[in-house]
């Protein structure tokens, strides 16, 4: 890996984490929004509990609107997207303008969604841009070390969110396995207790089951990479 400062490694990792936070949250909210149209959505208070964010929302509709678009809300998707782009902007010469443009496009779609009567159409375009971002950096960033740091960010965040949002054990185990494999050949330091926790869970989870209390695994996923 070429010369990178610790601050750049930190930004690469967090760019990956925020990009995945936006991606996974968006998928989740699209399903949730669909339920609020004419289905039976889960009470938003439960989601706030799962995500460990304060419940400042009046009802499910307010939750959708606010949690997606409120730029003053530190937990919102908008804020996560802003951090994703902000980290990306500081890495232009590392990831190149062509790749950064996909993060900018994703952010631009979010702004459009905010002012749209069918926000999930724009959200779909946002997901398209995020997927293109993943493909673009994989294809154009030559340095494998840089690619791996970003991917570590993706996978850490995905594990954390899948575990928090109650995704099926099998899916969580698959992502945890990916995370372990990834950090093994990435030039980042890891915390041994977190690594051991994840390793133990994936080894014991061969039958596709996780412990009922997922909090230790959430913690391990988020704390695994030490920057």
């Amino acid at each position, binding site marked *: 890996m070429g*010369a990178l*400062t610790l601050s750049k*490694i930190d930004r690469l990792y967090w760019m990956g984490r925020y990009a995945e936070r936006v991606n996974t949250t968006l998928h989740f909210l699209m399903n949730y929004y669909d339920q609020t149209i004419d289905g039976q959505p889960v009470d938003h208070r439960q989601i706030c509990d799962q995500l460990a964010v304060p419940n400042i929302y009046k009802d499910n509709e307010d939750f959708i609107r606010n949690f997606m678009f409120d730029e003053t809300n530190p937990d919102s998707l908008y804020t996560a997207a802003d951090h994703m782009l*902000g980290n990306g*902007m500081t890495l*232009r010469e590392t990831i*190149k303008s062509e790749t950064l443009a996909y993060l900018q496009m994703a952010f631009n779609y979010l702004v459009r969604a905010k002012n749209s009567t069918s926000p999930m159409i724009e959200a779909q375009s946002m997901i398209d841009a995020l997927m293109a971002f993943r493909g673009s950096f994989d294809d154009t960033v030559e340095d494998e070390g840089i690619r791996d740091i970003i991917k570590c960010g993706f996978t850490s965040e995905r594990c954390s969110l899948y575990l928090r949002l109650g995704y099926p054990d099998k899916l969580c185990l698959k992502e945890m396995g990916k995370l372990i494999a990834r950090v093994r050949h990435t030039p980042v330091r890891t915390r041994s207790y977190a690594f051991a926790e994840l390793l133990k869970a994936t080894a014991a989870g061969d039958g596709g089951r996780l412990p009922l209390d997922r909090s230790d695994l959430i913690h391990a996923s988020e704390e695994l990479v030490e920057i």
Partner: protein
Amino acid sequence: MHMGLTELQDHVHVINTQMARYGVKFGIYKNGIYNERLFPFDPIPRIITAEEFVDLEKGLKQRVDALNLFLADIYDKKQIIRDNVVPAEFVYRSPGYLAQCEGIKPPMGIFSHISGIDLVKGKNGTWYILEDNLRIPSGASYPLIARMLCRRCCPQTFRERAILDNRNYGKLLKDAMDYVNRGGINVILTPGRYNSAYFEHSYLAEQSDAVLAESMDLYVEDNRVYYRGNNGPVRVGAIYRRLSDDYLDPLTFKPESVIGVPNIMASYRAGNVAIMNTPGNGVADDKGIYYFVPKMIRYYLDQEPILHNAPTYLPFYKEDLDYTLENLDKLVVKDVAEAGGYGVVFGNSLSPEQKESFKAKLRQEPRRFISQEVVDFEDLPIMEGDTVVNRKADLRAFVVSGEETTVWPCGLTRFSRNPSSFIVNSSQGGGFKDTWVLSH
């Protein structure tokens, strides 16, 4: 529309969508709040003929060479002061003069590596220099990316016309950095994401193959600058810094600066790193010194200036003060300590009370101001919605000094959105255009 530019006009929406895709933005601080916005782009370019460019190129090189010689002289022998060509007062009282830079000889003797020279074209066809920017002139990245996106949107327009290629700006910058490099990597030092020109900093780093760094990424040890690499320190040989002198080194300038690099000046003084542009250049682009640039050209180069200043008066001299007071209505007065379109007063815009109060200020602090005849500069067509209207526009030409002095065959054309305004600065709500230099 001249030159059949309808293809560009027809594609204005798609061009601007592309600009948004690449985040072509600049930031403004207003009332302490930072706002970032897209830099409005007008697709109708300014066109400079090949013949016109020959004179512009010669005149700009001449001016920048003279300014570099002036800086070398001022921070060393000061012969131009001794020979009474430039009054000492205009040098030592300039806020851009830095005593801390006395005696420093920059690598390869170059002070202003990237010069942004602002010009306007009068209705009589004559180009006038409005201002020299020798500190950290910004703006080259905008026409650079705009041209690329316009080519992508309207290829036929570019196939059919003989326009000089502007793709080489990144290479010019890299060559200039390599030329002065003292051993190590090239770095672009930025104050960070919330700087108004951050897009430019990051884009130029990419284009010139330099490393974009913030202050925390660099440190000085044994008078050498290092980049904190993940595999250990990496020596830095040249720094294109995009922060102002005051904030560059808290141990030399403002101690409260958190965006500078402690001891970077010691390394520079020891000749271990090149800083582009060199600290202390503000003494040569001071609005008061501007008056003396034609004299500098004659003094250092023994040549007649090819490009002209706008007719300028120095209230510092009694006869110029009297002229300014008597003719305030037809003059524009500029505060020499201000930039970015601030501190500019058009005499005819003042009420009688304001005029009297301003005259008192002029008498009290004559050194603080210059006055100029208002150059009736040409209007350029811009698109407003679907119609084309005429607005005032200037040109920032970029001159890169490395092994040779090179004028970039492009430039940033800025225009005013306000039909009655002569102020084109982006910080004042203006937009920009590409600048085409024709090859024949």
